């Protein structure tokens, strides 16, 4: 420390230098000796305003941490700590005034913020005239005298750190505006937070300011977000510098979004010391963002799939989001259309929907959640469904921005007209910065101006385009349509939302969505790049399908497994009884197996009906008889705990519906009711005549006002919450645990009733049971139409020859066995190739029974071959599922019939004998 | 007292940085450099080396292997392993070879402890 004096005596200005010389003159050589010692010294000049410091030595710098240059010219009071005893300070001044020297202990603050007790010895040096010329003060850290014990010192130091933390928080707050701030001391494991932070977290502000355990950082955090936040904080505590997290806090039952941004501060050894940051409430921002995210993101495309006649539409989550509805896999048509502005065409099932082919329309909606008005576009295709009816598959997306850009375009046009008068900087910015392709063409279609986006997106310089005619860049496949629209533009028709592919200069294709507007002598056009969206549309649809398949499979597998267990178990038991010789006993097991098999068959039947691959067999139906016939089955199904009551009007009308479907609907509803009454109860099945008014049918899509047969299924069970009630008709919606039931029941019933041009009502209150009413249209024809298949027993054969073509050996065996037992002769073949030569031969054949789905030649083709040589040969097709077989009128020619697998032997036998009898009668 | 320090690092830049830090702490010390383990061992044949600073990640034998070999031959030689590979395993192996661990990038501050400790040991060994 030899050079410290020189280092410190480096006065900032010449005036001070003069003062020092004067000081030396007054104090003599003692001054330099003192200055060079380890005692901290300041010299002030009371002759100048506010008694400024004119000298400090190196020991002062060491004691306080201030450099000489920083303190020169300042009054010593800047060293005083907050809360310094004002009396002590006043006393010092007074004593100096009177005695010229004084000693006092003052609480001072070092440059680094630490405090110390400073013992000041001040002496006034007087000039020759006796006036105070300099005040010479020595300063000593006497903090030790004040810290009587370690505990006190510790306390002071903690308080001091706390004060520092508060100060830093205050600074952070000032910088950050209306945000809360925290400071997490990693070593001490304490969290200090300001009042705003405490407010956001629901903490006591005083406790927060004084320090809390760090766990307080997570206490208010919404449980679902807590672990993620912990992970992020763990990063920060382990040295990650950047901390930024949005999460939710739950305070007083209210969920709010906050955004926390922080930083970890390291010591010289890279050890994390503190973790501090600011917290802002972003609930409102999140709400807005969430709304906009869906509507504005390039992928904001919702997909849907609708089959005419159905009451529900399969939809994607984004579809729901675009309408402001909760995510669902399926939505009722009326829920969807309710969102659409009543003046616009409904989204689903508008009058135009009967026309096949691509469809496009734009419409306004009021979002179901926020009521916000948006413009949506719907693009889709109506196709003939394989089973008849029309499928409508498509996507919707938000075009509010496009609509707005039309407005912008109009504005732009107006601005351009005024170009000569006003150079509008704003407009140029839109023109230059827009990512959309903007162009101005003459009425001849030739480009007059294009904006820089053409270069950025497609690579064309203005010089490439100016003078050329619009549409030249359009992909050949889209050119025809583009040409028509361009012609329209010339005659003053606007183009909105036209998608076409455009070639970029380097040959890449871009999907561009065009809006163009003729105005005066010019055509103004805006094109937006939607290539990404087009890709997403496909992806979305595919993934949505996969989701549905996954959901369905779980439920079906369960149901089928149960039925298979019944079948396999029943047959196994039956076989054992036979082996034991207890033939009579075996019968009931086979009966059980048969029932399981029939249930499986019924399930596939319903599923096919559900997917519209099996048409309904609507015909006049005696509902009263049907209900009566089901009573026994229902009693068994419901068990002893549930009492079954029926209440059927005596003069019930005849309805029009598919009896199998109604039966399964009633069974389904009964089972649901049973499950809703785990502790027993009463199930009432009623049927009565009603006339439905237009008002009551307001929510129905298909039913017309008039007479109906009402079938009610009422239970005394637990009922449904409004939430469940709103979803019961959704496919796959089920309240049963995963894998227990497909969730298809009610939606299939809904589909069935809709297809039957009927109506469904459901009424329930939680805890007060439920009633579901099916309304089936009244039959207006003659009751005589009700023809049952007349004879009950199949007549035996008389040695007629039947050619059997079936590739499945088990089925073939069964069929041949039955034929032989009935007294027919069977020719067994397993393919069309094997059967064709027999058909072309001279062998006598009275009937051909063939599977439809054969390898190689299919059953229908084989029938053609047969008919070439044997035009009158009766043919019976067997089919498990064949799309073309559904429309029987085109599939079946004269003398052909079809029976669907699985079938009961009895029914099969009856069909065969009936066919042969008819053939015989015709020939006779 | 003049001591001889050997800096072993395949990176010339690293040798320069370490050399500069040593020069700032002990301007009088003689500094030798080696670009790898073999070159370092060769230097030990001809030179009286008082302390060694080794890089860990080097082509051929790595710094810890070299440290272990040197420890076998010179029980009291102050050795430091300097590396940015601050894995707990590496630090533990350096400790096991009775070598100091210095995190890269090497600074004057980071070297100070090792250098002053080594200086003290050399002095007490009577050199």
């Amino acid at each position, binding site marked *: 420390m030899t050079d410290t004096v020189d280092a410190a005596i480096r006065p900032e200005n010449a005036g001070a230098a003069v003062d020092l010389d004067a000081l030396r003159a007054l104090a003599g050589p003692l001054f330099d000796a003192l200055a060079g010692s380890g005692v901290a010294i300041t010299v002030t000049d009371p002759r100048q305003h506010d008694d400024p410091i004119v000298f400090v030595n190196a020991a002062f710098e060491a004691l306080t941490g201030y450099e000489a240059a920083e303190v020169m010219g300042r009054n010593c009071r800047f060293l005083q700590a907050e809360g310094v005893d004002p009396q002590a300070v006043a006393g010092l001044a007074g004593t100096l005034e009177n005695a010229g020297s004084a000693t006092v202990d003052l609480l001072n603050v070092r440059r680094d913020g630490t405090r110390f007790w400073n013992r000041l010895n001040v002496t006034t040096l007087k000039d020759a005239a006796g006036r105070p010329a300099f005040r010479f003060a020595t300063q000593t850290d006497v903090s030790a005298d004040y810290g009587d014990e370690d505990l006190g010192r510790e306390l002071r130091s903690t308080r001091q750190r706390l004060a520092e933390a508060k100060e830093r928080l205050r600074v952070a707050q000032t910088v950050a505006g209306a945000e809360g701030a925290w400071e997490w001391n990693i070593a001490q494991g304490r969290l200090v937070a300001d009042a705003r932070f405490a407010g956001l977290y629901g903490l006591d502000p005083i406790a927060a300011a004084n320090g809390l355990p760090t766990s307080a950082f997570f206490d208010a955090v919404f449980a679902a977000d807590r672990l993620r936040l*912990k992970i992020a904080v763990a990063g920060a505590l382990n040295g990650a510098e950047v901390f930024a997290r949005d999460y939710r806090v739950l305070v007083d039952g209210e969920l709010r979004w906050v955004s926390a941004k922080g930083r970890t501060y390291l010591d010289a050894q890279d050890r994390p010391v503190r973790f501090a940051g600011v917290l802002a409430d972003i609930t409102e921002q999140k709400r807005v963002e969430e709304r906009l995210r869906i509507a504005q993101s390039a992928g904001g495309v919702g997909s849907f799939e609708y089959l005419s006649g159905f009451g529900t539409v399969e939809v994607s989550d984004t579809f729901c989001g675009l309408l402001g509805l909760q995510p669902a896999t399926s939505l009722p048509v009326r829920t969807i259309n309710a969102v659409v502005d009543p003046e616009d065409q409904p989204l689903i099932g508008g009058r135009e929907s009967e026309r096949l082919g691509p469809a496009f329309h734009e419409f306004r909606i009021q979002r179901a959640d926020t009521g916000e008005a948006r413009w949506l576009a719907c693009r889709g295709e109506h196709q003939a469904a394989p089973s008849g009816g029309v499928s409508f598959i498509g996507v919707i997306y938000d075009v509010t921005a496009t609509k707005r850009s039309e407005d912008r375009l109009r504005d732009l046009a107006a601005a351009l007209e005024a170009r000569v008068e006003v150079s509008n900087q704003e407009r140029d910015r839109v023109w230059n910065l827009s990512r959309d392709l903007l162009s101005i063409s003459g009425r001849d279609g030739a480009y007059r101006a294009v904006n820089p986006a053409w270069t950025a997106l497609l690579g064309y310089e203005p010089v490439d385009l100016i003078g050329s005619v619009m549409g030249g860049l359009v992909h050949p496949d889209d050119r025809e349509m583009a040409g028509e629209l361009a012609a329209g533009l010339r005659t003053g028709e606007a183009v909105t939302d036209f998608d076409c592919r455009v070639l970029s200069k380097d040959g890449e294709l871009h999907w561009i969505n065009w809006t163009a507007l003729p105005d005066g002598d010019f055509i103004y056009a805006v094109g937006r790049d939607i290539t990404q969206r087009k890709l997403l549309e496909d992806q979305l649809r595919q993934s949505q399908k996969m989701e549905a398949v996954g959901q369905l499979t779980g439920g079906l597998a369960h149901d089928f497994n149960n039925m298979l267990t019944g079948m396999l178990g029943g047959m196994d038991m039956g076989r054992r009884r036979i082996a034991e010789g207890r033939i009579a006993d075996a019968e009931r097991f086979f009966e059980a197996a048969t029932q399981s098999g029939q249930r499986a068959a019924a399930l596939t039947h319903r599923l096919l009906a559900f997917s519209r691959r099996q048409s309904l067999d609507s015909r006049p139906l005696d509902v009263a008889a049907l209900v009566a016939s089901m009573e026994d089955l229902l009693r068994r199904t419901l068990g002893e705990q549930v009492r079954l009551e029926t209440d059927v009007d005596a003069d019930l009308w005849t309805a029009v519906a598919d009896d199998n479907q109604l039966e399964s609907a009633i069974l389904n509803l009964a089972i649901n009711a049973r499950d809703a009454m785990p502790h027993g109860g009463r199930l009432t099945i009623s049927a009565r005549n009603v006339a439905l008014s237009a008002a009551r049918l307001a929510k129905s899509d298909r039913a017309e006002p008039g007479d109906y047969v009402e079938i009610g299924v009422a239970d005394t069970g637990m009922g449904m919450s409004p939430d469940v009630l709103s979803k019961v008709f959704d496919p796959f919606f089920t309240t049963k645990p995963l894998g227990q039931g497909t969730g298809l029941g009610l939606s299939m019933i809904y589909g069935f009733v809709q297809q039957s041009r009927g109506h469904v009502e459901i009424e329930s209150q939680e805890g007060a049971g439920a009633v579901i009413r099916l309304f089936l249209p009244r039959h207006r024809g003659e009751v005589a139409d009700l023809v049952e298949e007349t004879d009950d027993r199949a007549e035996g054969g008389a040695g007629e020859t039947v050619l059997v073509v079936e590739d499945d050996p088990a089925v073939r065996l069964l069929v041949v066995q039955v034929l032989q037992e009935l007294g027919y002769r069977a020719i067994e073949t397993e393919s069309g190739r094997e059967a064709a030569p027999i058909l072309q031969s001279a062998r006598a054949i009275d009937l051909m029974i063939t599977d439809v789905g054969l390898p190689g030649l299919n059953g229908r083709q084989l029938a053609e071959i047969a008919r070439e040589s044997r035009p009158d040969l009766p043919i019976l097709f067997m089919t498990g599922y064949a799309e073309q077989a559904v429309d029987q009128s085109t599939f079946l020619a004269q003398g052909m019939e079809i029976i669907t697998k699985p079938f009961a032997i009895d029914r099969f036998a009856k069909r065969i004998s009936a066919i042969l009898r008819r053939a015989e009668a015709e020939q006779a | 007292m003049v001591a001889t320090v050997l800096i072993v690092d395949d*990176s010339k830049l690293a040798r320069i940085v370490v050399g500069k830090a040593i020069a700032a702490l002990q301007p009088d010390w003689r500094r030798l450099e080696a670009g790898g383990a073999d070159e370092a061992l060769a230097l030990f044949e001809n030179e009286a080396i008082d302390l060694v600073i080794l890089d860990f990640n080097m082509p051929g034998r790595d710094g810890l292997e070299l440290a272990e070999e040197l420890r076998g031959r010179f029980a009291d030689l102050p050795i430091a392993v300097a590396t940015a590979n601050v894995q707990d395993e590496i630090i533990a192996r350096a400790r096991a070879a009775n070598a100091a661990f210095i995190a890269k990038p090497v*600074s004057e501050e980071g070297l100070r402890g090792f250098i002053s400790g080594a200086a003290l040991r050399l002095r007490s060994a009577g050199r």
Partner: protein
Amino acid sequence: MSIQTIFLEELERDALTELVNIGVSRAASSLRKMVGEQVLLSVPSVEVVTRQGAATLIRERENGELVAVRQDFEGVFSGRALLIFPQANSMALVHAVTGGALSHGEAVDMEDEALAETGNVVLNSCLATMANMLQKPLQMSLPEVLRGDGASLFTLTDQHADGGVVLFLYINFAINDRDIRGYIAMLMDLPSLQALRSLIADFIERVAGDVG
């Protein structure tokens, strides 16, 4: 829907992002000491992409020639770490790390050597810190300086040249007061990703217990 949700759950992504954050912060601190300037970091990005996708990610941001220091790592999980910056920044970085110690001529001669050592220190700090957090050791190869475009930097090894997906972590940094910016990137193939997942699960478990 996206490929990454197939491979990493949200929590796992979070945890991995944090691990990278910790490692890269340490790396930035090393770089800071080497150049004597503030080093600014972005929020790390963790994505599962194809190798071409990784190259595209960088190419979309940097269209000039790139320099990279590459270090392969091996252990319970393996992959490649890269310190990448535009070729145009290379000499500026060399000057920054050598400080006043070298003349311009010397610095030019030492360019690759200085880059390798810088990469060595930065990448080692990052990887070692991550290994410590996961409590599993990693072996690091010697640093190697590469020049070229994104695609050549992102090929892992020959047997993986199948165009499959990789876990791609990257973070971009900038050195204050100097016009130097770059990326720290990490690539891991799928088998490594599986191993990493289980380590991350352990990490999450530790974190769920011990913070607050």
